[in-house]
C-alpha cells in the first residue's frame, strides 16, 4: 500500500499567528485506504494543520498536492470541492433544522431554484446509510437527537459531500465508549471503501485501535511518522514531549508552605456534568496548578470558584469559614479577596477601546472613589504603582489598551486585579499567546505574590509552566481531579500520563527500562 502514490501530500507548510509559530515546515503524507492518526500536545500544531488542509486558513508558505497535482484552497468550500471534508470538535449542526436539511446545508439540491425536498431526502438517506445510521429519520429535528446520534449526522453530513479525505478532529471527545465503538466500525468500513481518514485524538487507546499510521507533532513540526503498533505508549509520550526545555522559571520556595492553614478549601464541588466531586485546598504562599488536557473542566472550576456559574454543588471555605460566592462582585470584596485572570483577555479581561487608565482601575473603582465619585489623584497614584510593579510598557495611560502588545495587555489584566490586593488569585491560562520575556516576568510575579502570602490557582495548557511554577499540580480528567502531583513528582511523564488517563505503572516500568 505504501508503494502507491500518496493521495495527499503537504510539504514545508508553515503558519504564524502574530509572533507565534503555529506550524513550522510541517510535512504530511496521506494514503487512500488508511486511517492516519495525528498525535501531539496542546498547541503542537494539529489544529492549524487541519485548518490549512480544510481551507479555513491559508498557509504562509509550503505546498500541498492532491493526486500529485498542486492545490491551494481559498475557502472551506474549495477544500470541500476538492474532496476534503472535516468534522470539527464542536458540532456544526443547526439544532432547529431537520437531519436532511443539515446534511445538505451547504449545497442543497435545487429544482427551478427551489430546494428539491425529495432529492434532498434521498441524499440524506444515502449518506446516513453510509454512516451506519440508517435508523435516524431524515426529517427528525437535530435538537431532538442525543449527542451520539448528532455525531453520526455530522459524519453523514461530511460523507454527503463525497469526500476522498475525511478529517476527524477530536470527534469522539463528547461521546461515551459505546458510541465511540459504533463510530469506529463506521470509520473502518469507510477505510475499506478507499477513503483516507485523518484522525486526531488525545485518547491514545483510540489511536492505537484505529490507526494504520501515526504522525506525532511537536512545536509545529512533525517529529515522527510510524506504523501503528510499532511504538509503545511511553515512546509516543517521549516523542510528544521532546527535549527542548529551557529553564526560565524562578526558584520555588525552598520549604513548601505546608504549615500555613488553607486559605481556600473546596469540598465535593460539582456543577452540571462538567465538574465532578472536586475537593482540594490551597494554603497561603502556595502555587497550585491545574493540569490535564484542554477542556477537562479546569475553566469551569475557576469560574465556579469565582461565583460565575449557577447551581454549583458542594462547599467552599475561605479561611475555614463556609461561604457562598454569588458573583464576581462578592468574590472581589475584602471578605473573600479573590481575583480571576480570565481566559480571553480581549473579550473578558480588557475593554480594548478604553484607555489603559480606565482598564487598570476598572475592577478597583470602589477603592479609589468616595460616594461613587472617582478620586483622580488616588487613581493615578495606584495606577502608576501598578505600571511600575509590572513594568508595563505603554506610551501613557490615555491610549487605548488595544494598542498595546499582547504581553503588555496581559500585564494590564493582571495588574487591574492586583489593585484589589487579592489573597486568592485564579489564573486561566495567563501566558497563552504572549512572548517568552513577558511569560518569564509573569512567572516571577506569581512567585513573588505567593511569597507575600497569596494563594494561587493556576491553569495552564503548557506543561512546562506547570512543572516550573507550581508547588502542586491537580491533574483533571473528565471533570474530576484524576491525580495530585507534588514537589519532584511533577514531571512531564506524570503529567501527560495522568492527563491521558494512562496507567502510571506501565509508564513507570517503561521509564525504568
Amino acid at each position, binding site marked *: 500500500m505504501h508503494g502507491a502514490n500518496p493521495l495527499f501530500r503537504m510539504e514545508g507548510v508553515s503558519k504564524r499567528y502574530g509572533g507565534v509559530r503555529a506550524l513550522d515546515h510541517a510535512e504530511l503524507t496521506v494514503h487512500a485506504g488508511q486511517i492516519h492518526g495525528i498525535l501531539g500536545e496542546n498547541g503542537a500544531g494539529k489544529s492549524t494543520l487541519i485548518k490549512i488542509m480544510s481551507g479555513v486558513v491559508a498557509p504562509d508558505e509550503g505546498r500541498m498536492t492532491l493526486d500529485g497535482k498542486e492545490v491551494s484552497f481559498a475557502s472551506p468550500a474549495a477544500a470541500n470541492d476538492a474532496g476534503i471534508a472535516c468534522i470539527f470538535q464542536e458540532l456544526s449542526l443547526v439544532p432547529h433544522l431537520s437531519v436532511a436539511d443539515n446534511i445538505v446545508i451547504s449545497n442543497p439540491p435545487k429544482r427551478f431554484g427551489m430546494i428539491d425536498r425529495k432529492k434532498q431526502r434521498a441524499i440524506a438517506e444515502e449518506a446516513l446509510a453510509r454512516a451506519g445510521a440508517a435508523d435516524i429519520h431524515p426529517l427528525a429535528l437535530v435538537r431532538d437527537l442525543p449527542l451520539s446520534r448528532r455525531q453520526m449526522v455530522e459524519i453523514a453530513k461530511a460523507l454527503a459531500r463525497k469526500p476522498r479525505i475525511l478529517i476527524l478532529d477530536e470527534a469522539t471527545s463528547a461521546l461515551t465508549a459505546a458510541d465511540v465503538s459504533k463510530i469506529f466500525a463506521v470509520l473502518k468500513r469507510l477505510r475499506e471503501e478507499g477513503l483516507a481518514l485523518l484522525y486526531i485524538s488525545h485518547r491514545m487507546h483510540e489511536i492505537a485501535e484505529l490507526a494504520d499510521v501515526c504522525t506525532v507533532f511537536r512545536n509545529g513540526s512533525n517529529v515522527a511518522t510510524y506504523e501503528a503498533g510499532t511504538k509503545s505508549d511511553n515512546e509516543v509520550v517521549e516523542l510528544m514531549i521532546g527535549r527542548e526545555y529551557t529553564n526560565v522559571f524562578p526558584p520555588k520556595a525552598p520549604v513548601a508552605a505546608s504549615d500555613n492553614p488553607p486559605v481556600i478549601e473546596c469540598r465535593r464541588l460539582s456543577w452540571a456534568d462538567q465538574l465532578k466531586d472536586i475537593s482540594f485546598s490551597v494554603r497561603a504562599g502556595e502555587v497550585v496548578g491545574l493540569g490535564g488536557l484542554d477542556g477537562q473542566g479546569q475553566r469551569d472550576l475557576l469560574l465556579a470558584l469565582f461565583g460565575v456559574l449557577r447551581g454549583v454543588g458542594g462547599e467552599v471555605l475561605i479561611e475555614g469559614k463556609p461561604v457562598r460566592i454569588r458573583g464576581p462582585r462578592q468574590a472581589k470584596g475584602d471578605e473573600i479577596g479573590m481575583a480571576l485572570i480570565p481566559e480571553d483577555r480581549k473579550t473578558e*479581561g480588557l*475593554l480594548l477601546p478604553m484607555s489603559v487608565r480606565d482598564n487598570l482601575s476598572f475592577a478597583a473603582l470602589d477603592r479609589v472613589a468616595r460616594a461613587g465619585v472617582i478620586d483622580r489623584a488616588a487613581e493615578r497614584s495606584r495606577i502608576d504603582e501598578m505600571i511600575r510593579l509590572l513594568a508595563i510598557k505603554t506610551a501613557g495611560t490615555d491610549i487605548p489598551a488595544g494598542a498595546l502588545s499582547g504581553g503588555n495587555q496581559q500585564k494590564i489584566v493582571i495588574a487591574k486585579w492586583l489593585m484589589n490586593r487579592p489573597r486568592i488569585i485564579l489564573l486561566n491560562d495567563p501566558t497563552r499567546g504572549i512572548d517568552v520575556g513577558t511569560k518569564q516576568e509573569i512567572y516571577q510575579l506569581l512567585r513573588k505574590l505567593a511569597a507575600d502570602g497569596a494563594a494561587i490557582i493556576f491553569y495552564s495548557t503548557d506543561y512546562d509552566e506547570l512543572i516550573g511554577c507550581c508547588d502542586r499540580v491537580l491533574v483533571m480528567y473528565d471533570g474530576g481531579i484524576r491525580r495530585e502531583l507534588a514537589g519532584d513528582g511533577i514531571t512531564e511523564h506524570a503529567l501527560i500520563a495522568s492527563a491521558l488517563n494512562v496507567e502510571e505503572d506501565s509508564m513507570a516500568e517503561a521509564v525504568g527500562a
Partner: protein
Amino acid sequence: MSDISSGRGRNGIWKRIDPAVATAFGCIVLLLLVGSLYSSNFLHLEYLLLQLKVASFLGVIATGAMLVILLGQIDLSAPWAITTGAMMSCAAAAYGPTGVALAIPFGILCGMAIGIVNGIGVAYLRIPAMIITLATNAVAQGLMVVYTGGFSPQDEATEAMRYIATGFLIPSVPNAVLVWIVVGAGAVFFLSRTTFGRAVYGIGNSERAAYLSGIDTRRILVLAFAVSGGLSALGGVLLAGYSSKAAQSMGDVYLLPAIAAVVLGGTSILGGRGSYLGTVAGVILITLLQSILSVMQIPEAGRQVIYGIVIVVMLLLYGRAPASR
C-alpha cells in the same frame, strides 16, 4: 498592531477630539452658512437663541437616549415616556396646591417608572431592549389613552412648568436652555468622574468583561434606563410648559431625532464609545436641520426621509470602525 503608530502620531488637540464630533460641528457651521444664503436671519443672535431653546427640549431627551446607547442598548419608549411626563405633571396640577408643587417631580417619577420596567426587563429578564421598550411604550400609551379618554387633556401646565420652559432667569437666555445646561453638566460629571460612568462605558464595550470585573451590571442597566425614562419625562414636562398643556402623541416626533442626535454626535450605536460634547453637537445639528428644512418649506414627511438618510450616512462613516482597537 499597525494602529499603534497612528494612535501615537496624532498629538495635541487632535488626539483628544473625536473626528465624529468635529464633523458634527463642521456640519453645524455649514448649515448656518447655507441657511444664511437663504435668509440673513440665520446668523442673528435672536434666531440662534431661539434655536437653542428648541434644541434644549431635544437635548434633555437625547441625554437619556445617549446613556442607554452607551450601554449598547436602545430606549424606544421615549415617545410615551415624554407624553406620560407631560400629561402626569399637568394632571397633578389639578390636585390643589400640593399637586401644583409636586407636578414636576411627579411627572419625572412617572417617566422613571417606565424606565425601571425597561431596565428590569433588560437586565433581569434578559428581554432584548428593542422589544421591552417598545412594549412599555405601548403600555404607557394605553394607560394615557385610558386616563384622557383619547381626547386632548384639559389639565393646564403649572406656572412653574411654564417658567422653566419659557421664562428668563438670566435675561435673554431661555430657562429651557439653562435646564439643558444643568442636565448636560450632570451627564458630563457622571460619565467622566464617577464609578457609574466608567461602568456604563465598560458595559458598553464588553458586558462580559465588566461583569467579570465585579461590576454589578444589572444594577447599572436598571439605573441607566430609569434615568433615560426620567429625562424623557423631564423633556415632556418642558414641552407641556412650553405649550401650556399636554397633547396626545406629543412625544412621537422626538424618538428618531433623539437617537439621530446621539449617533450623529459620534456615539457608537453598539455602545461603549461617545462623548457628551458630540451629543450636544448632534442635537444642535438636528435642530438646525429641522429649522432649515421648514424654512425651505419641506413637509414633515420629507424631513423624516432626510433624517433617516442622514443617520444611515453617519453610521456608514463611524459605525463601522472596528470595536476592538
